């Protein structure tokens, strides 16, 4: 019996090049004649731009060119926004690649220098003189929406980029009849994604042929190729975009950026390859941020804990301009999920997207869903506190019962499958929740502040049906394609349109194909990230690579298997109906010794000496897979913390995650995704915060000030799972990239608030810095 690779935790096939330093990331490229670009960025949050004197910079050693916005006005069209959420009064403000008249955030580009080397380029930046006339600025979205706030764009009233609303069920009745209402104002602080690889681009342009090659740190090279044609004017068919090794993205490498297009512009002008790579501090200003919501939430319930309604208003900071996919994130990916895993029967949300004098906000791991899960899960704990019920019991009372083929929500989604109560039960029993509560009570008697925090969640991923994409204003499709090509030796090339950047699909996709057609994983090479060689695809984000791209691949592989069966039948002189695919071989039913391997079939298909009638030569198939629905992973998480009341320091003592992403292709990789996702969410709860001061300066402007999670502050994450297949996916799989982050922030938040509940502390803005926690304790104990 051939071992089934699906479900096996085999070692990753990406790793040999990565552990030896032989992988090639964008910044590792060196082309003959390559020169370097550096961007001059606005030091002001908001200012009019006067004269720019570039003459000293132009004369500096090694400098080839200096361009300002005047020079690029013809060659670079404004940056596009590609998620035009409908029925939201969306106002897309003009977003020039290089600012000409006005800068609107610290980091807005005002000029570019190209020099022989990076040091010279940076030297020349210091020699450019720009006259700025500072204007009043605003960075907080709720404040920017108020009357009298500084206005960013002349044609956008009240800085309002959009107003989107969703409702379902009778919310007014729910609140009118509510026996209990809990309210909270929640701040989802601004975060910086911090993919370890900063962004970089290398552009090579042949002035004679008009061909462009652009290497870039992107999560979606095909989208970049298209949008590049819009901005730089290089036609799609003349542009080749390559995402080489990409060092993480977490959403920040979804959007297209001025930096890449300016690099292309410079390469076109100079006829030499141009490299641009951002520094980390530049990344903090120039690469998109995440979250930045101010949320006012109310939950209606009965005294027995039954949740009856949710009502909220959200001010979502968009930054100075709308980034590529930004409008869809606090709306579609957020508001539609508010019924949560409880099927809340009445929901109403108003979301105001607000321009602020800050770095543009985009998708960041979870993208809208962590912010939704946080609201609901926080309010569930508030309800539990209000009615004196254990938070686990409130959840048990409200969770949707297990279903395997659809649950409709009042926001119009149909969850595919789920068994939320089992996930929670498994969590509580594994963690021994009852014992933890006893331990907590004992600790309290000796003055120790231990807290337990739960989070039960469902998320939508595997974006998504293209028809839905069209209906929600996404300016593209959301299908995926794959090509499976079998060579004469039986070795397989797989070409995919998605673009993994650390998730391990070179391994998991090989596992899928190996099982489907009867080869080993090592016989399958997965090729991605090059628009000239791979089929069109919409990219790697929203936990969709396996959920959509994997489905496309499974279907393509099955086409190959069907054709292989036909050829094998011919070679074995059997009827196709009598053939079966068993143990990785194509055999005649009941006669396992009469069998052909894929290599046997592939050789014949490729030489085509003896093919069945009407069967084409070759062994290759492609598919375009458009999913019929999203997928809906779910789970239940528990955090245990202890708070030091003397200092306010929070110690995360234990973390248990149960996630259900359907059948797991490679459980080791799934576990790794959960580890990383959970820790990113923990980072939001405990450490991470992009802070702007009153003048719009990013105070946490480098890794010296912005605290990322470090190994020593984290416990071992306990990872468990349940398996509920998606009924509509060819492999039943759902997606796991974002689940951990979606669940963990609020689990930790709830745990800290649980620890402090005897003191009467009700809310603390994230992150839980020691000072914030200490102050809350001081205020609460003073009040007593």
């Amino acid at each position, binding site marked *: 019996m051939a071992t089934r690779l699906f479900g096996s935790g085999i070692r990753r096939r990406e790793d040999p090049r990565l552990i030896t330093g032989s992988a090639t990331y964008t910044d590792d490229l060196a082309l003959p004649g390559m020169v370097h670009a550096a961007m001059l960025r606005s030091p002001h949050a908001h200012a009019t731009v006067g004269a720019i004197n570039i003459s000293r910079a132009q004369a500096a050693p090694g400098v080839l060119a200096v361009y300002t916005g005047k020079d690029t006005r013809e060659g670079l069209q404004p940056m596009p926004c590609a998620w035009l959420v409908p029925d939201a009064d969306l106002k897309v403000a003009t977003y020039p690649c290089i600012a000409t008249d006005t800068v609107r955030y610290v980091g807005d580009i005002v000029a570019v220098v190209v020099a022989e080397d990076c040091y010279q380029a*940076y030297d020349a930046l210091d020699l450019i003189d720009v006259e700025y006339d500072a204007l009043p600025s605003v960075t907080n979205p709720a404040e920017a929406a108020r009357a009298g706030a500084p206005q960013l764009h002349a044609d956008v009233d009240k800085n309002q980029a959009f107003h989107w609303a969703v409702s379902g069920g009778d919310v007014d009745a729910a609140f009118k009849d509510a026996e209990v209402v809990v309210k909270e104002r929640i701040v989802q602080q601004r975060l910086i994604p911090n993919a370890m690889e900063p962004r970089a681009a290398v552009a090579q342009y042949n002035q004679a042929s008009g061909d462009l090659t652009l290497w870039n740190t992107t999560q979606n090279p095909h989208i970049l190729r298209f949008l590049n044609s819009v901005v730089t004017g290089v036609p799609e068919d003349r542009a080749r975009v390559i995402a080489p090794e990409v060092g993480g993205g977490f959403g920040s490498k979804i959007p297209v950026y001025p930096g890449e297009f300016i690099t292309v512009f410079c390469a076109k002008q100079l006829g030499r390859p141009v490299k641009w790579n951002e*520094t980390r501090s530049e990344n903090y200003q120039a690469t998109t941020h995440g979250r930045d919501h101010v949320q006012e939430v109310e939950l209606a319930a009965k005294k027995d804990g039954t949740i009856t309604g949710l009502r909220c208003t959200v001010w979502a900071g968009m930054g100075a301009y709308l980034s590529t996919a930004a409008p869809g994130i606090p709306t579609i990916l957020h508001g539609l999920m508010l019924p949560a895993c409880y099927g809340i029967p009445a929901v109403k949300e108003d979301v105001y997207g607000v321009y602020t004098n800050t770095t543009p906000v985009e998708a960041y791991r979870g993208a809208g869903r962590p912010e939704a899960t946080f609201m609901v899960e926080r309010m569930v704990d508030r309800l539990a506190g209000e009615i004196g019920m254990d938070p686990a019991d409130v959840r048990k009372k409200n969770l949707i019962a297990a279903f395997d083929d659809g649950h409709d929500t009042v926001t119009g989604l149909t969850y595919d499958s789920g068994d939320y109560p089992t996930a929670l039960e498994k969590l509580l029993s594994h963690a021994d929740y009852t014992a933890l509560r006893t331990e907590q009570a004992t600790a309290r008697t000796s003055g120790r502040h231990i807290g337990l925090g739960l989070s039960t969640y469902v998320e939508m991923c595997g974006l998504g049906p293209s028809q839905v994409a069209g209906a929600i204003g996404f300016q593209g499709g959301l299908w995926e394609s794959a090509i499976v090509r079998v060579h004469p030796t039986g070795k397989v090339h797989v070409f995919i349109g998605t673009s993994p950047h650390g998730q391990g699909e070179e391994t998991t996709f090989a596992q899928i194909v190996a099982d489907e057609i009867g080869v080993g994983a090592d016989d399958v090479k997965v090729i991605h990230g090059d628009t000239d060689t791979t089929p069109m695809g919409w990219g790697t984000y929203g936990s969709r690579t396996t959920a959509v791209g994997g489905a496309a691949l499974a279907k393509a592989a099955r086409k190959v298997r069907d054709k292989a069966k036909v050829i094998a039948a011919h070679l074995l002189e059997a009827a196709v109906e009598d053939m079966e695919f068993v143990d990785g071989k194509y055999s005649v039913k009941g006669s396992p010794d009469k069998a052909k391997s894929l290599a046997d079939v592939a050789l014949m298909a490729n030489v085509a000496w003896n093919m069945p009638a009407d069967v084409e030569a070759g062994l290759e198939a492609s598919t375009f897979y458009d999913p019929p629905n999203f997928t809906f992973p779910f789970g239940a998480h528990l955090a245990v913390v202890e708070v030091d009341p003397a200092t306010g320091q929070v110690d995360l003592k234990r973390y248990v995650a149960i996630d259900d992403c359907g059948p797991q292709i490679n459980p080791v990789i799934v576990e790794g995704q959960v580890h990383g996702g959970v820790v990113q969410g923990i980072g939001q709860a405990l450490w991470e915060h992009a802070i702007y001061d009153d003048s719009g300066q990013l105070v946490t402007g480098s*890794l*010296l000030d912005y*605290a990322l999670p470090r190994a020593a502050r984290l416990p071992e994450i306990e990872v468990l799972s349940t398996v509920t297949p998606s009924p509509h996916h060819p492999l039943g799989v759902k997606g796991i990239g974002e689940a951990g982050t979606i669940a963990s922030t609020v689990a930790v938040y709830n745990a800290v608030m649980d620890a402090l509940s005897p003191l009467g502390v009700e809310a603390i803005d994230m992150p839980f810095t020691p000072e914030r926690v200490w102050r809350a304790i001081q205020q609460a104990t003073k009040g007593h």
Partner: protein
Amino acid sequence: MYPADFAYYRASSVQDAGRLLSEHPGAKLLAGGHSLIPLLKLRLAVPPALIDVGRIADLSGISVASDRLRIGALTPHAEVAASSEVATHAAALADAAGQIGDPAVRNRGTVGGNIAHADPASDLPAVLCALDASIGIVGAGGDRTVSAGEFFLGMMTTALGEDEIVTHVEIHSGQEHGSAYAKFPHPASRFAVIGVAAVVTADGDTCRSAAVALGGLLPAPVRASHVEQAIGGQPLNEASITEAAARAGDDLGDEILGDVFASADYRQAMAPVYVARALTAAAARAR
């Protein structure tokens, strides 16, 4: 990031370094570079020249002679942290050196470079003050020794003259006392939000004398004289340590530093907590 251009000179001896310093006004000394190079990269420092003293052999190493522990200016933090001599004679210094930055930083960063830079959030200044260390200096005007308390004058300001070089640090051997360092690290930079060094000499369970210095929250480290007086002669138990530590506020003055992570008020409130922690740990080692 990319430093601006500078000239580079490599000093073969302390005297050579002194000569180069006087020949190149505005030049900076380069030892391990772990305070200077970050500033060069951000172009916050744009010196015309660097004088590399990193290869001057007799500036590195740890030795004990009679009752003095001597640490050469070029000794990297990792060596201090791992040294049994330092652990024996000045445990607080080993504690602090082992908490600077991270292992790779400790491999390159040097004691002399650290104290000459005098970052208020650095770990060593407070420890050297509590240990009453003396700092050896060589300059055109000859050799001199300055006590740590007189060396650290303010934010990144020391008693070091333009053409002077730190050569070593000397500490009176402390086998009869116990010392410790308690640190509240910043979660991102790992610099000290507060760092407290305590040195305790005990008669059994009673404190004969104590030296306590606070760093991190002030422009320059200070000795906590009110705390020192309060704990002197008292039993080394939780109650008396807490009571003495509560006097820390009286030692802080009005230049307490604050930032978005930890305000001045908060740091002030945390001072007694960390003083108590340092005293408790030092007392345990003194017994």
